[in-house]
């Protein structure tokens, strides 16, 4: 058995014989390895096929606009459903009951907002990045730089959280060392993006979404089969064993302001995530973009409903004591549930699905970060839009490798650190820096370059500053007695602040070009570039 996991198991005081239960988790699992190699082989096959089709920057960044609405629905779901939601929420529900479900709903409610406010205007106005939209009637250079800062901050924090999570989980599930796991993830991800660009990344997301949804559904059906296919019978069994308290709100929402602030980050952050926004450029038109969000919302909502079943299933069938004895955070609830229902082979399958999930998310993130570096900073700012297609493609690929290497290094650098907060930090930056800028530039005639740029910068900097001053960093990580800022997530302050700064600075400055172009841009928002 892998030494650290063994130590962890021993370190937990045994709460009776029920805890000392045989699990294959942490041992090299032939089935998991088998599924994992099949996944790698299939995705590299896809990458080879995609590489032959990737000739232009439009192929590399936007899959040649050839993805259908249904395919993009799956790809959006694949980009969004991270291992954190699969393993983390199932674990949270299995150890806290109802409180975990608060997350299940929070992660979905951003999608309707994406549909109503962002998806179609974005597709009609932009080419490759969300900065294309913000810069449509504002001055290119300052907007591109500010948008690239917002994008890279979001992507880097999201990447760190994914990489560190990946290293830990893979170590736990496959028995590889942390560093090996990070390097394997990094190499596979760079291969997908570097050679296959958006075409490969999209299909990796689709394969992953099908695997994850399929795996979760099979697992949920197996759980429900033990309870006469009635979710209520399952919840009742949980309440009988652990009290009605598991069906009721507990300590998680102790501070309402914290809950509202996190909710705002999730709801408006989804509409500012660069790797999600980039997906809308892969479909042929705004109508397909609209339909793809509809499909994605259906799939993601279905997945989070599944987490209700998986979480309570693991609570009843595996028990919280066993789950926390394998991993204190509860992250192994779903794999343990799979093992108890389907034995080692099913554990292997679910472990491989979790791995595929992580790989796909980091590939999408890396591609969107590379687009900000190459399309926004290099081509639009440094070369003022005067770069040959061959040069653009080359810079995009160099950026991919650079960002991939940085992700691996950061993953190793942050080994053992508590990085769970970085996902909500990424959402807070996306919600405070990217979302207000998109909204103001698309819908408000009076906004000016200076107003939007200040809004983006204030959004990014205030979020970083307030997170640093928050209890999450000051008390949990730096072990100080108190924190200057009371909220764990700053979105409650930073989103209104960023809007206010954008509006006030716009009103104090003038940008004749921006208002002159408004009619034309409004036309394009609805009719597209061809209209």
């Amino acid at each position, binding site marked *: 058995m892998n030494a650290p996991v063994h130590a962890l198991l021993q370190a937990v005081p045994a709460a009776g014989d029920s805890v000392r239960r045989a699990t294959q988790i942490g041992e090299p699992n032939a089935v998991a390895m088998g599924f994992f190699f099949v996944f790698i082989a299939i995705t590299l096959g896809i990458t080879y096929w995609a590489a032959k089709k990737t000739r232009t920057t439009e192929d590399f960044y936007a899959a040649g606009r050839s993805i259908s609405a249904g395919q993009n629905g799956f790809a959006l779901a694949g980009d969004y459903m991270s291992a954190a939601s699969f393993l983390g929420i199932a674990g949270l529900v299995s150890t806290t009951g*109802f409180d975990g*479900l*608060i997350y*299940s*709903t*929070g992660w*979905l*409610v951003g*999608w*309707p*907002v994406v*549909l*109503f*406010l962002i998806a*179609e205007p974005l597709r009609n106005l932009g080419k490759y990045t969300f900065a294309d939209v913000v810069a449509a009637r504002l001055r290119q250079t300052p907007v591109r730089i500010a948008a690239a800062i917002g994008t890279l901050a979001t992507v880097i924090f999201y990447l760190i959280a994914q990489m560190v999570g990946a290293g830990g989980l893979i170590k736990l599930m496959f028995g590889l060392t942390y560093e090996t796991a990070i390097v394997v993830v990094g190499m596979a991800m760079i291969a997908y993006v570097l050679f296959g660009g958006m075409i490969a990344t999209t299909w990796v997301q689709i394969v992953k979404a099908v695997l994850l949804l399929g795996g979760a559904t099979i697992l949920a059906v197996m759980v429900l089969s033990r309870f006469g296919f009635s*979710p*209520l*019978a*399952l*919840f*009742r*069994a949980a*309440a009988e064993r652990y009290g*009605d*308290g598991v*069906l*009721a*709100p507990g300590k998680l*929402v102790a501070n*309402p302001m914290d*809950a*509202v602030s996190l*909710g705002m980050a999730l*709801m408006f952050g989804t509409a500012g995530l660069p790797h999600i926004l980039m997906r809308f450029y892969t479909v042929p038109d705004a*109508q397909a973009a*609209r*339909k793809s*969000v*509809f499909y994605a*919302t*259906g799939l993601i*909502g279905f997945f*989070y*409903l599944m987490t*209700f079943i998986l979480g309570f299933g693991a609570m009843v069938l595996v028990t919280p004591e066993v789950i926390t004895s394998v991993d204190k955070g509860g992250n192994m609830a779903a794999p343990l549930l799979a093992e108890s229902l389907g034995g080692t082979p099913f554990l292997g399958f679910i472990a491989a699905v979790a791995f595929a999930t992580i790989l796909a998310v980091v590939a999408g993130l890396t591609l969107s970060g590379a687009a900000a570096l190459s399309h926004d900073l290099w081509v639009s700012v440094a070369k003022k839009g005067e770069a040959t297609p061959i040069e653009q493609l080359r810079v995009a690929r160099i950026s991919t490798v650079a960002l991939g290497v940085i992700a691996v290094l950061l993953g190793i650098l942050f080994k053992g650190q508590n990085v769970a907060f970085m996902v909500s930090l990424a959402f807070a930056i996306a919600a405070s820096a990217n979302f207000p800028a998109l909204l103001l530039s698309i*819908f408000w005639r009076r906004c000016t370059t200076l107003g939007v740029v200040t809004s983006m910068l204030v959004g990014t900097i205030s979020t970083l500053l307030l997170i640093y001053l928050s209890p999450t960093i000051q008390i949990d990580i730096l072990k100080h007695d108190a924190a200057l800022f009371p909220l764990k997530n700053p979105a409650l302050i930073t989103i209104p602040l960023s809007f206010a700064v954008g509006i006030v600075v716009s009103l104090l400055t003038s940008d004749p070009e921006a208002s002159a172009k408004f*009619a034309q841009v*409004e*036309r394009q*928002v*609805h*009719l597209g570039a061809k*209209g």
Partner: protein
Amino acid sequence: MHNDARLRALAARRTRFAVTLTIAMIVIYFGFILLIAFKKPLMGGLVAPGLSLGILLGALVIVASWVLTWLYVRWANSYYDRELAEIRR
């Protein structure tokens, strides 16, 4: 020129509808969160054996997200697309 006026009217109409739906989503989700924060005993109460009001409302938040996106897509696929097609002509 007539076309431009028609597009502006359609744009205003889409914005109104989109903002209304967004506000509906905000009210539903933050209403759920505030109920959890301030009405814990109510949310923990059982509406059926095994089903607390909190779990029921949580599932309904997900269903409401589906219904709102469906409402928008239905409107856009029929009315909005048809208007755009006529403006393009």
